């Protein structure tokens, strides 16, 4: 019976993650305008064929990041997928949250997943450095505590990327929680002491496009 509950929680979480992945895939594979270079060196826009249109991404950059969130008493590794065009970028995050310090309130250490979705603006974008500022949401699905437990936060976020190599970069993010549900408190420790309400993460980014 208990195993059944665990499996159902897993299947619900996987279903939510699949929905998120499908949303990203559909955004990346929107039929778009392919750029073709003519012999004169001028760019011309050409409509793609319907069969190949689904394979042509409308984004001018697609990035994947493995990142680590710096949290007291918790470990939070995750991945981020980002797709952008011009000034705009859509970032999606998936992380796994565990306790690194034991708690009397929970037998297990695994808490659940963090899902993040952000609409970013890219005011600075160069060969070696880019800066993104945006707004989005963090959703914590704490199914390690109980299947119904979830917390959410409205999140302003800054992302800085340094590109020492053309396709490999270092990513630094900072975020705060502007509005949040009652069960999550960034900037307050378990013992009630307070700290800076800023959550940083560091990651390694691979540029696909």
């Amino acid at each position, binding site marked *: 019976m208990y195993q059944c*509950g665990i499996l159902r929680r897993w299947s619900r979480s996987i279903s939510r993650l699949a929905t998120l992945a499908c949303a990203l895939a559909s955004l990346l594979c929107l039929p778009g305008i392919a750029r073709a270079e003519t012999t004169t060196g001028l760019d011309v826009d050409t409509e793609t064929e319907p069969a190949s249109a689904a394979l042509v991404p409308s984004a001018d950059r697609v990035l994947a990041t493995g990142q680590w969130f710096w*949290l007291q008493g918790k470990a939070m590794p995750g991945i981020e997928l980002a797709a952008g065009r011009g000034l705009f970028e859509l970032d999606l995050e998936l992380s796994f949250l565990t306790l690194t310090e034991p708690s009397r309130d929970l037998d297990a250490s695994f*808490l659940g997943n963090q899902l993040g979705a952000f609409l970013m603006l890219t005011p600075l974008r160069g060969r070696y450095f880019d800066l993104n500022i945006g707004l989005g949401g963090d959703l914590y699905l704490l199914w390690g505590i109980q299947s*119904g437990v979830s917390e959410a936060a409205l999140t302003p976020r800054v992302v800085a990327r340094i590109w020492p190599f053309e396709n490999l970069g270092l990513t630094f993010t900072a975020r705060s929680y502007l509005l949040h549900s009652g069960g999550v408190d960034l900037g307050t420790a378990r013992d009630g002491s307070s700290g800076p309400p800023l959550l940083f993460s560091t990651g390694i980014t691979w540029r696909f496009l």
Partner: protein
Amino acid sequence: MYTLRRLGLLVALCTGCAPMTFSNDASIDFRAYPNLSVELGGPDGSARQSAYLESELREHSGFRSVTRATLPTPEPASALLSLELSVHSSGGDDLILAILTDDEPDPITYSASVSYRLSARDGRVIDSGAESEEDESTFNSAVESVLDDVVFHYLRAYRL
């Protein structure tokens, strides 16, 4: 050198650990009612669902002990949780018609609802409520989802 120092400062700033706490306040005073007896009834309450509810309450709720109302217990329960469970299905009504016309039949979906009441040993009602879940693909998932909602209501207090 100056650029490296600035980069080092950025790295140091971005690797500072932030405190973050997840917490939940208990919906009732579990210290006053540590031992719970559960009685699941209604048209769709069965032993299997009762066992599931007990197991989930035991694992996640703030009650120290959870037992079935019909079973003898070593110590008297300080509270009784009575639930009425009902499940309804929808869709699939035109299955024969769909087969005859080669149409895709509507998938059968299940909705479950439960009303609950927590009473003290003297019969006084401590807490009551109702939960419902819709559009579940199986009977069991509808039942377990709605019972999970009840367990969520009696989730133990935590600070993680």
